[in-house]
C-alpha cells in the first residue's frame, strides 16, 4: 500500500488530503498517470513528486510503505 498526500488545488479536486494506491511498487511517472486516469486530477504534468519527503525523479521506483506527495507549483514566501 502506498500513501499519496495531496495539497492545495489537488486536495480540493480530490475532496481528500490522502489517497491510497494498492501496489507493491510503481514508478513516479506511472503513479502520475494513474492519478490522472483514476482521479482526473489537474496539474499533474507540472507537479513534482516527493517520496518520503524528498523530491523524486520520473523513473524513481516507489515501494509499498513509502509516503508519496504530489507537489503542484509552490507559492510560498
Amino acid at each position, binding site marked *: 500500500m502506498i500513501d499519496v*498526500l495531496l*495539497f*492545495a*488545488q489537488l*486536495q*480540493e479536486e480530490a475532496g481528500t488530503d490522502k489517497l491510497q494506491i494498492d501496489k507493491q511498487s510503481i514508478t513516479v511517472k506511472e503513479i502520475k498517470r494513474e492519478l490522472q486516469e483514476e482521479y482526473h486530477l489537474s*496539474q499533474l504534468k*507540472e*507537479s*513534482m513528486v*516527493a517520496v518520503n*519527503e*524528498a*523530491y*523524486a*525523479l520520473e523513473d524513481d521506483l516507489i515501494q509499498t510503505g513509502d509516503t508519496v*506527495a504530489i*507537489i*503542484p*507549483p*509552490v*507559492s*510560498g*514566501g
Partner: protein
Amino acid sequence: MVDKLFEVIEEPISVEALIKKVESRNAGAITTFIGTVRELTGEKKTVYLEYQAYVPMAEKMLAQIGKEINDKWENTKVAITHRIGSLDITEIAVVIAVSSPHRKAAYQANEYAIERIKQIVPIWKKERWEDGEAWIGDQLGNVPYPTGKPEVKGESDD
C-alpha cells in the same frame, strides 16, 4: 528547548526571535526579509490569504536552503520561519534572518533564500478576493528544482 532554525508554524512570527537565532560575535551584519500580505496585486484586492504546507518536508527544504547558503557564503548563520493558516493584510507570512561578518553576503544570501523558497519549499498560497478565491501556482509553468542552482527570475509579484 533547542531553537529550531527552520520551521513552519501556525502562530504569528516574532522577528526579534529570529534575529536572536542568528546573532553571533563574528556577525557585523544581520539582514531580515519579512514577507507580508499585501492588499493590492494589480487591480485585484486581496481580502486575506491562506497558506498550506507539507510541513515536515517544508522544514527539511528550508534547512536545505540554509545549508546551501552556508556553503556559498562563509560564516553565515540562517534562520527561516514560514507561517501557515489564514493571514490578514499586513500580517507576516515569512521571515528570513541571515547574519554574516560582512554586509554584502548578508544581503545576497537573504535574497537567495527567498528565491529558493519560491522554488523548492512545498507551501501553497490561496488568495481570497471579494469575488472569489484561487490557489496560486507559478504562472510561468516552471516546476521546482529538486537540486541545483535556482534560476533567479526578475521582478516577481511578491
